[in-house]
């Protein structure tokens, strides 16, 4: 008999975690909800005033907010296909038989970018992409590309680092999927066709789908959360060209000190996150 347990037992097991997460996860959210309904400026705490949905109205009609949101999804839309493309390529190379030692070393080096502190990635970006003394321009045959000061190039640079840091993750996930393909099925297919594309599409793809779904969920969440690397690399500049949603909220709340407005922005971001998570998890993770 599975799952027979008294209420008390269940509560004893699950209670502490629920309680813990409620304190650090829900209490602040309720507070944010309260703040978002007020004029609440850190430097004007004496003027706190209930203003209803005014902050929300401001956020929803603020093109700057929606531009930041659009930019965030644009980043997801450009970086993710690159990560999946490169990741799949790397997984296929690693899946090919032979060269065991070299492959092990490659797998180990793939772990490094993922474990790197995100803030450090941004600092590293500043050093490597500097127009004058950066090594990237030197490696590009002494090109004189202005990475940090040009809106398009700065965005490209953010994409580069995001791809650098997270392609290994995609590669390893897809590699695990490839190893799930039963050996005899794959061999049989190889004898029938030489085209790796056909094999990929018809034999391997079904085994890759769960991994791709996991990648989609996690990368979406992480892009909405993206802050550290951009904060240390471009701080959202030049202009607003790399100001993603989390950076923008941080700016409003902790630099402009308008915590009411920032809370409203945060709540809207949270709603978008939950809706996306619901869709992803309900659609793809049916079994839980």
């Amino acid at each position: 008999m599975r799952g027979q347990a008294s209420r008390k037992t269940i509560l004893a097991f699950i209670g502490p975690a629920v309680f813990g997460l409620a304190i650090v996860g829900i209490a602040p959210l309720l507070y944010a909800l309260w703040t978002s309904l007020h004029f609440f400026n850190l430097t004007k705490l004496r003027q706190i005033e209930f203003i209803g949905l005014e902050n929300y109205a401001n956020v929803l009609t603020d093109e700057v907010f929606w531009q930041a949101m659009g930019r965030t999804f644009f980043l997801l839309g450009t970086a993710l296909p690159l990560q999946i493309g490169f990741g799949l390529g790397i997984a296929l190379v690693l899946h090919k038989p032979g060269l065991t030692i070299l492959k092990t070393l490659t797998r180990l080096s793939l772990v490094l970018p993922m474990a790197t502190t995100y803030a450090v990635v941004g600092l590293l970006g500043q050093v490597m992409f500097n127009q004058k003394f950066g090594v990237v321009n030197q490696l590009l045959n002494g090109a004189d590309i202005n990475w940090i000061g040009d809106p398009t190039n700065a965005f490209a640079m953010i994409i580069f680092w995001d791809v650098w840091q997270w392609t290994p993750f995609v590669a390893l996930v897809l590699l695990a999927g490839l190893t799930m393909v039963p050996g005899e099925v794959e061999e049989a297919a190889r004898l029938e066709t030489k085209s790796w594309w056909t094999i990929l599409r018809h034999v391997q793809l079904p085994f890759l789908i769960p991994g791709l779904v996991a990648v989609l969920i996690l990368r979406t969440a992480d892009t909405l959360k993206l802050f550290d690397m951009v904060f240390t690399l471009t701080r959202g500049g030049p202009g607003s060209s790399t100001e993603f949603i989390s950076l923008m909220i941080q700016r409003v709340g902790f630099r402009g000190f308008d915590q009411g407005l920032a809370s409203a922005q945060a709540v809207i971001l949270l709603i978008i996150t939950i809706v996306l998570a619901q869709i992803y998890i309900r659609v793809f993770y049916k079994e839980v």
Partner: protein
Amino acid sequence: MAVTPSDADPGVFTAATGTKRRIANRSVIWQVVLLLAIMLVCVFPFYWMVTTSLKTQIVALEAPPVWIFEPTLDNYREALFEDGVLRTLINSLIIAVCTTGLALLLGVPAAFALARFEFRGKKDLWFWFITNRMVSPIVLALPFFLIARNLGLLDKHITLILIYLTFNLPIVIWIVTDQFRGIPYDLDEAARLEGASQFTIMRKICLPLAMPGVAVSAIFAFIFSWNELMFGLILTRSEAKTAPAMAVSFMEGYNLPYGKIMATSTLIVIPVLIFALIASKQLVRGLTMGAVK
């Protein structure tokens, strides 16, 4: 069964294998080149970080950058002992270890219940746990700051230890629930008949079998906590300042001490990289758990 080479005409066979071998050779070379390229791209930024950290400011600002120079450890000496990076590293370690421990303490029993008990609202509860992993820290940072301020908890280790639960607990629950679910029920049937409590069953029978999953989630929780910046930046000032928050604090628009910034970066990143390499097997398994479902 498909046609095997031995069934074919012997003459054709040799020619075919010849071409095949040539093709095979060429593809092996390609594979080697690609593998080396992948490794290079992964490792090069670290090489550059470490070499820059060994440069004096003048050498670091030379254009085009120099590859061969006389290395100095001054940046490390300054960062560690004059600017207090050492203390922030210790803070980061304390916080990461404690929050990981706490996440396991709370998360493992919850995961056990989610995997093994039937109760109403289970799905929603699981979903709520997991959603926390996706919430942007900025959503929580604002109100958490205000609450911590009211409770006098700013710049304390415990504050970060607690708030890091928001992303660590979901990781633990996600991975460990999965692991518990994979353990067959009949194993603990006997124990239950003997009247063992659910807690005993979890501890004595299931937990040892779920250890790999627990280890994986602990590794993740540790790495995520070590690397976290935003909460560290907003909720600490000096006493509990974390290493990533420290690295950022050298970025004064007046003068960018790149060597020192890279030295600090190296000090932050190297421990976690070594840890990740040692635990790479578990790490990869954890990452790919979603892939094999």
